[in-house]
């Protein structure tokens, strides 16, 4: 997994609540058996005016000029600013892969759907929950300053604004440790293989119908 330590980048505003994972990566692209290549189809229905299918040359499709990520400088954004309940709906991790492949490394929102939030950490993407009033203020600042950038430092759990103001944020200790070090958590879990076997032995006695 890619490490996340510190990033500085352009912030793209996505000003609508309940952005679902069907919108982030539509179903036809889930037929892929690969983990990469979803970037050109992130937000496909909103991003293009003509319908898309897997295998197409997406650079030849008609982009929707109204869509924020088609506008400069947001096509170069690495931080997504979003509203309530971002990533709701389907558990498809492809949504995180598509955002990552587009170039995003972090998403800031007042709240996230649980499965999306959890999936993000597995691909080195940092989801940050901030108070709704702080997010509202960030939307105002982003909208009045095209090219607005933030610096996110995971180690110190701080976001720095262009004017020098600092916003602290929370992150789970274990998830932070994995992100900072780019750790594969399967490897970490297998260090406890003996504990898992002990659990299984006890459980087999108590509830043999589960085995």
């Amino acid at each position, binding site marked *: 997994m890619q490490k996340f330590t510190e990033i500085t980048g352009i912030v793209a505003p996505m000003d609508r609540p309940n952005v679902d994972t069907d919108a982030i990566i539509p179903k036809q692209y*889930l037929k892929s058996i690969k983990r990469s290549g979803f970037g050109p189809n992130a937000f496909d229905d909103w991003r293009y005016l003509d319908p898309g299918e897997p295998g197409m040359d997406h650079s030849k499709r008609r982009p929707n000029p109204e869509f924020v990520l088609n506008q400069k400088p947001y096509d170069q954004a690495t931080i997504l600013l979003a509203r309530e309940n971002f990533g709701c*709906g*389907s558990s498809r991790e492809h949504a995180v892969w598509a955002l990552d492949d587009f170039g995003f490394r972090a998403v800031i929102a007042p709240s996230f759907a*649980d499965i999306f939030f959890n999936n993000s950490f597995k691909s080195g993407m940092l989801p940050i929950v901030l108070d709704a009033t702080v997010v509202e203020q960030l939307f105002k600042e982003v909208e009045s300053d095209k090219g607005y950038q933030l610096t996110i430092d995971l180690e110190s759990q701080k976001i720095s604004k262009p004017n020098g103001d600092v916003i602290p944020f929370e992150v789970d200790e*274990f998830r932070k440790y994995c992100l900072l070090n780019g750790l594969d958590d399967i490897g970490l879990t297998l260090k*406890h293989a003996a504990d*898992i076997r002990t659990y299984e032995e006890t459980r087999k006695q108590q509830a*043999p119908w589960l085995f």
Partner: protein
Amino acid sequence: MTARTLYDKLWDAHVVRTEEDGTALIYIDRHLIHEVTSPQAFEGLRLANRGPWRTDSLLAVPDHNVPTTSRNEAITDPVAKLQVDTLEQNCQEFSITEFNMGDIRQGIVHVIGPEQGATLPGMTVVCGDSHTSTHGAFGALAHGVGTSEVEHVMATQCLIQNKMKNMLVSVDGQVQPGITAKDIVLAIIGKIGTAGGNGYAIEFAGEAIADLSMEGRMTVCNMAIEGGARAGMVAVDQTTIDYVKGRPYAPTGEVWDRAVAAWTDLKSDEGAHFDKVVRLDAASIQPQVTWGTSPEMEVAIDANVPDPESEADEVKANGMRKALAYMDLKAGMPVTAIQLDKVFIGSCTNSRIEDMRAAAAVAKGRKVAANIKLAMVVPGSGLVKQQAEAEGLDVIFKEAGFEWREPGCSMCLAMNADRLEPGERCASTSNRNFEGRQGQGGRTHLVSPAMAAAAAVTGHFINVNDL
């Protein structure tokens, strides 16, 4: 001992170890897999030279991509075919049981697990699919995971988790005639909102929930995720035990008796603490219809489409305006005035035998309205289809002008050929009305099977009790 909720009990029984910060390793009893979210997980196992920890905990089935036309025809979409073939190859390589397309037990993963008794009370169940919450109907802890976690569970039999908070949703009293599990759960989501359950495991309780069949409880738990909760659950009672008994994967003999004795404790203790409690009056629930692009955007059938101008929260009002524009509806219009183009009866929410019966009861002796281009019924599994045909339901549907299809996820998410064209409007028994969910530019209204059948025969929404 302190009083515990059902979720507390399921959690406690599955903790392998807990770290100082509260992060726990949770043991997984049943892992269901399908073709869409597993290929990258198998690839990850191969790259790391790993294999499944416990092959017998795995059960695989292709469902999302499979065509619902004749099973004698091969999959014509080469990309979909590769994915279905890849699941088969992976299952062969790792000796995992798979019900392939030629097997009568094939069907939607959340239908076949319970049908086979592969989902049992007290289990932890995961699947790379958000509607895994369905299995919580059995007093199990069941939730969807992403592909990285599919790989993690295959490799370690465990998940790294933080305990969720407890929410109780109590539906008190009895529902009125004609009100189904789908109406109950849509009313719940309308009340708590699509993010209301974020961070919680929901226990559904109350007289109206206890009165439901297992099929109905599965419909309710299925949509817990639409209320934001990864896991929904219902306490075990005699209804649960009667359903499980005799199923192929269920225990037998002396082990069955021991299991039943253990399962009777799978309920919240008197006085157990819930972090949030929500109550609904069952008698006040009307047949529900969603009008917008989020499952929380729902109203009773006799209501009007709501007006964003009367919504105080500006972010919410903005979302409502976008939804009305996408759905091409006007604020204030009666829901019964909404004309439809297609009707879909199926999905992991509503494709079990009871759903087939409810829709057939409405379709019987009636005809699909002239403005309906397609009304399709997609049973949840080969065995549901077989049972429905034994009861003559297929004949009722076909005589009324419905298409009777082969099992799969079908037009719930339109990964196969079953989909809406841009601008088409559908009455659907599925679970998500997101933009483009049933096909790019398509417009979805979520309803119960009886309400979908009623919409099919009249061409617009109507209270099924007024037919």
